[in-house]
């Protein structure tokens, strides 16, 4: 029982990160109908930026303080992701208004390749360290309830906490501010939103900026665990099945979908892994999403798709 709980908690905590990345994904889809295949590349790009700037900035400025270096690198990386958002809107989206979903999807594939390419050219193609002082040692919890307690990875806990905080902050932003209201309006009806004076282009830049921030936070967390390296973009792509599971247009769906996949991965790894061989966590999310799609094509919380006539 204690072991099961331990696995479950581990899954919930890693799932929170998927939720965060999926949230960025859903926001872009809601606001612009773009299925953003570049989300994984954005995570990698952000992680590389964080890793390299935290290395370069102390050299440039001659400071010898890890904390300051991290703060500055994080701030610069936010600006980098905002610049990416702005460029994507300027150079790509703006010219593809009213195009088919498939065209937009292909365009984001292109963006993904460009980000990968530019990222490697500018930041290098090695494995870089991100050291933001995440606690590494595990802790025991609930020792009074279970014999021996359950083992919690402190790093996962902090990561999950930060992700949850960001998810909550973003939800509040979109529910309570006029920008959030404008975004919901655009998500609901492009044409009407424009006609009442909501600029689509600006909303697109905003959602790509938000997706950039989620990518950066996820990139820093994953990067500090695995190192900032090329494989991060595939880790982040596991947010795709999350989105399918949760429903492309649903914010709560993204959050719950992330948790389900996080838990599913961990449980299957532990309980099924021994029978089907290792590596199950790599394909489990996709399989779960596929099976799910057969029964509920619109996802857990997605709206049923009814064509407008």
């Amino acid at each position, binding site marked *: 029982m204690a072991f099961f709980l331990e696995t479950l908690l581990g899954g919930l905590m890693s799932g929170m990160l998927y939720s965060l990345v999926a949230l960025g994904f859903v926001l872009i889809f809601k606001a612009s109908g773009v299925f953003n295949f570049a989300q994984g590349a954005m995570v990698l790009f952000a992680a590389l930026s964080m890793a390299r700037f935290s290395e370069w900035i102390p050299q440039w400025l001659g400071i010898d303080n890890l904390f300051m270096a991290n703060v500055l690198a994080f701030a610069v990386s936010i600006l980098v992701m905002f610049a990416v958002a702005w460029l994507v809107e300027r150079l790509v989206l703006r010219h593809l208004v009213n195009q088919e979903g498939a065209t937009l999807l292909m365009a984001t594939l292109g963006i993904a390749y460009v980000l990968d390419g530019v990222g490697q050219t500018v930041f290098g193609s090695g494995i870089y360290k991100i050291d933001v002082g995440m606690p590494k040692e595990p802790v025991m919890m609930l020792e009074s309830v279970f014999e021996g307690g359950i083992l919690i990875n402190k790093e996962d806990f902090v990561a999950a906490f930060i992700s949850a905080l960001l998810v909550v902050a973003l939800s509040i932003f979109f529910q309570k501010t006029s920008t959030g209201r404008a975004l919901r*309006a655009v998500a609901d009806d492009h044409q*009407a939103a424009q006609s009442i*004076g909501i600029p689509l282009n600006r909303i697109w830049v905003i959602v790509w900026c938000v997706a950039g921030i989620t990518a950066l936070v996820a990139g820093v967390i994953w990067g500090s665990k695995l190192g900032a390296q090329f494989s991060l973009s595939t880790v982040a792509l596991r947010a795709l099945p999350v989105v399918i599971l949760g429903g492309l247009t649903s914010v709560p769906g993204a959050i719950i979908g992330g948790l389900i996949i996080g838990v599913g991965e961990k449980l299957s790894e532990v309980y099924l892994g021994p029978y089907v061989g290792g590596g199950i966590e790599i394909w489990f999310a996709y399989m779960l999403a596929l099976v799910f799609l057969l029964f509920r094509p619109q996802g857990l919380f997605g709206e049923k798709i009814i064509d407008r006539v």
Partner: protein
Amino acid sequence: MSGRKIGEVILDLKNISLSFGGVKALQNISFDVREHEIRAIIGPNGAGKSSMLNVINGVYRPQEGDIILRGVHHANMDSYGAAKAGLARTFQNIALFKGMSVLDNIMTGRNLKMKANMLQQAIWFGVAQREELAHRLKVEEIIDFLEIQHIRKTPVGRLPYGLQKRVDLARALAMEPQILLLDEPMAGMNVEEKQDMCRFILDVNDQFGTTVVLIEHDMGVVMDISDRVVVLDYGKKIGDGTPDEVRANPDVISAYLGASH
């Protein structure tokens, strides 16, 4: 109609032609709209009325023609630009934001008037909040004006059709437009709802001096409230003038008798 005074030409449409593939929705249409007037566009189904309105607020771009708004040529207007230029509209198939409450829907109409930037909103204090409150007051005035206080918090998707049309009007009014474009604001309403809507349109025009361009299917209503009427049929203009002139126009009579309504 009371003390309002019809002014100069505020919107001038010149030789507008619009086609969709082979369908010629509008063929060389010209007419003008004067400040403070209620200008109606009528005609049978498929005549091109909605297309005309969509051209005016930049949803459709005509292949030919010129739109002159307060003396300024607007060759490349999109609907955001139209909103900035003081045009507001309602839609034939109500285009409210279904997931949001009545209040939120109307608040979106204030978007152009809001100044607080993202950062201020993100932090949520001071400027942004004060601004939100000021706009909220304006919106409450409109809510009172259109007598929809009781549904303020209701999600619009749950409202009956007639009330949705009223909220659509409220959202447009929240923009404080100089020109209001209404696409069949009374379609699908019962007699009482139609009377209410007529009264609101006349009051908006009278109290705020808003210029109104109105599409209506129902001849009777149009003749009662409009100053001048354009008649379209199969994408062509077949009449233009005061309600009495239009009523006496033989082309108009035959178009309406020819069509099955």
